[in-house]
C-alpha cells in the first residue's frame, strides 16, 4: 500500500511528463501559437516587401509554437523540481472566487445601480476572500471606500457615472 503515495514515478516517462509544470506551460504556449498561426493567414499575408496584416501574427504564432515545444521539451529528462504542482499548496478557491466576483459585481451594479452600490459590493465581496475577514470590519471598510470613492471619482474627477440609480431614476 505504501507505493500508492507515488503512483506516477513507476509508470515511466509518459506519465511522469504529465506531472511536470513546464509540460503544461509549453502546451499553453503551443495552443496560443496555433490560434495565431491558423488564424493569421486569413488576414492576407502579403509579400515580404508589401506585408499584409496577417504576416506578423502568423510569424509570431510559428515562433510561439517553437518556444512552446522548447519549453515542453525542457520538462523531459529533468528531475522533478521542488514545486511541480500547478495549484498552490492550499488552493484558495473561495478567495479567488471573491476576487473574481468583485469586477463582475462592479459591472452589474455599476450598470444598473450606480457608483455607490458598485463600489460597496466590489470592496465588500473582495474583502470576504481573506480568511481573517470579519463581517463588521468588511462593512466598515466598504463604507469608507465607498464614501471616499464617490467623493474622489464623482465630485473631484467627475466620472460620468451616477452615484445611485434605479432604472430611470437617478441621484446626482
Amino acid at each position, binding site marked *: 500500500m505504501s507505493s500508492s503515495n507515488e503512483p506516477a514515478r513507476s509508470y515511466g516517462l509518459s506519465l511522469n511528463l504529465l506531472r511536470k509544470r513546464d509540460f503544461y506551460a509549453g502546451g499553453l504556449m503551443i495552443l*496560443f501559437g496555433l490560434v495565431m498561426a491558423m488564424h493569421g493567414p486569413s488576414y492576407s499575408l502579403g509579400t515580404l516587401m508589401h506585408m499584409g496584416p496577417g504576416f506578423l*501574427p502568423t510569424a509570431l*504564432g510559428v515562433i510561439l509554437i517553437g518556444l512552446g515545444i522548447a*519549453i515542453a521539451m525542457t520538462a523531459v529528462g529533468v528531475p522533478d523540481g521542488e514545486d511541480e504542482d500547478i495549484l498552490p499548496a492550499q488552493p*484558495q478557491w473561495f478567495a479567488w472566487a471573491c476576487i473574481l466576483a468583485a469586477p463582475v459585481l462592479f459591472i452589474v451594479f455599476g450598470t444598473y445601480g450606480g457608483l455607490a452600490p458598485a463600489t460597496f459590493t466590489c470592496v465588500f465581496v*473582495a474583502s470576504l476572500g481573506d480568511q481573517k475577514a470579519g463581517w463588521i470590519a468588511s462593512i466598515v471598510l466598504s463604507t469608507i471606500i465607498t464614501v471616499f470613492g464617490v467623493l474622489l471619482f464623482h465630485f473631484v474627477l467627475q466620472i460620468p457615472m451616477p452615484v445611485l440609480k434605479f432604472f430611470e431614476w437617478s441621484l446626482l
Partner: protein
Amino acid sequence: MITTAISDLAHGFEVIIYDPHAYFYLSINLLWCFIGVLIGNMVGVLPGMGPLATISILLPLTFGMKPVGAIVMLGAVMYGAQYGGAICSILLNLPCHPPHAVTCLDGFPMTKQGRGGVALGVTVMASFVGASWGITEMVFLSPVLVRIALQFGPAEICSLMLLGLLAGSTLARGSPLKGVAMTVLGLMIGIIGSDIETGAERFTFGLTELDDGVELIALALGLFGVAEFMNSVNQQAEINTKYSNVRLRDMRPTKEDLKRSFFPMWRGTIVGSLCSLIPGTGPTIASFVAYATEKKISRTPELFGTGMIEGVVCPEASTHSSVQGDFIPTMSLGIPGDAVMALLLGALMIQGIVPGPQLISQHPDVFWGLVASFWIGNIMLVLLNVPLIGIWVKLLTIPYKYLYSSAMFFVCIGVYAANNDMFQVGEVLVIGMLGYVLLRLGFHPAPILLGFVLGPRFEENFRRAMLISRGDIMVFLERPISAVFISLCVILIAGQIYVRMRGAKKPATTAPAGNVEQPLAAE
C-alpha cells in the same frame, strides 16, 4: 555640449517649479511630484503592493492632466517606491519588492541588533547619492544617445527594439525561454485590434470594443493587479513588528558607520549605473550584483549576513542609481528596459507623445521637466523619510485584507474611467485569470507588457524596413549599426545557452551571488 545640457536642465527646473500664472508662482507640477513620491513611498512600504499596480491604477487619473504633470507623478511613484521598499526589507525581513530582497540579508540582522534606525538612515543617504548619480548620467548621456539615434532608419530601430525585447525578457527573473515566450505573447496581444496600415481588424473575435486594441491599463491591472492579488491572498506571512520601533533619534549613524559606508555607497552607485546601461537589467539585478561585489571585495566576507552596514548601503545605492538610469533608454530612445518603464512609455503615448529619439527636441518640457523633478522628488523623499519614519513604520501593520480589497475597487474604477466603458472591466477580469494561470505555470508576466507596448511600433518599423529594402530580409545585417544590434542579440542568446549548459553540468556554481538567491525564492 555640457553647457547646453545644464541650460536645458535649468529650463526643466523652471517647468517644475515656476509658473507665472499660479498662486505664489509655484507650478502645479511640484504638487504632482509630491503626490507621486508620497504615494510611491506608501506603496513601497506596504507589503503586497507594488509600483506596477499603483502606476496602472493612477494612470487613468492622469488623462485630464498635462503631459508633464502626468509623467512626473507616475515617475515619482516608481522611485518613491524604492525608498519605501527598503523600510519593508530592513525592518520586517519581508522581501516584498524584488530590488530590495537582498537588503534583507544584512538589514534585518542590523534591526535585530537594535541598529535598524541606523540602517534606514544610511539607506536614505545612499539612495540619494545613487539617485543623484543616475540623474546626472541621464542629463549628460541622453543628448549623446539621441544624437546617435536620430540617424537610425527603420531597420536600425527594428533591431534595437529586438535587442531591447530580448534583453528585457531573458535577463529578467525566471527561465529565459519562458521570458521570450511572454514577450511574444505580449506582441500578439498588441496585434489585437485594427491594423495601422490597412485597417483590417485582427483577432477581435467580432467584438467591436476590441477594435482599438486591448487597453494598456486593463492589461497592466489584470496582470499586476488581479493576478497578483489572487496569488498572494491568504499567503501573507505573519508580520513581526517586534523590532520595528524606530524613532528619528535612532537613525543618526555614527562616524564609524559613515566611514564604513562611504566607499560601498560609491561602488554600489557605479554598479547600478553600469547595470542600467545594459538594456533589460533592472534594479533587481543591479542590487544582487552590487551585494555580491561588495562581499567579494570585503576583507571579512564571512561576516556578511550578520548585519554588515556595507551589505545594506551598497545594494541600496545601486538600486537607486539603476532606477534613475533606466529612464535613459526609455526617454531618449523609446526602448523601455522593464515593465514599469513600458507602462510609463504607455502613459506618454496616451498623452499623445510619440516616444523615440525625437522626444527631447519635440517635447523639451516633458524630458527636462522629468529630469528636474527627479532631483526635487528625491529631496522630498529624503525629507519624507527621515522625520516621518514613525508614520511609515506604522503603515507596515496595515493588514493585507484591507489593501487588496480596496485596491480591487481602484482597479475597477480605473479601467472604467479610462474609456467610461464597462467592457474594459471585463477585460481586466479575463486578463487577470490568464495572468494567474501564467503565474502558476512559472511564467513572469512582466515581459508581456514590454512586448505589448513595443509591439505596434515594432511592426510598423519592420514593415517599413522591408518596404525600403524591397523585401530583402538581409537589410538588418547589411546596415552596420543594425548588424551590431543583431550580433548583440546573438551574443545574448548564446550567452544564455552557455550559462545553461554550464549550469546543467555543475549546478552548484550557477549563481554568482550564491546564497543571496534565497530571499528572492521566498518572495
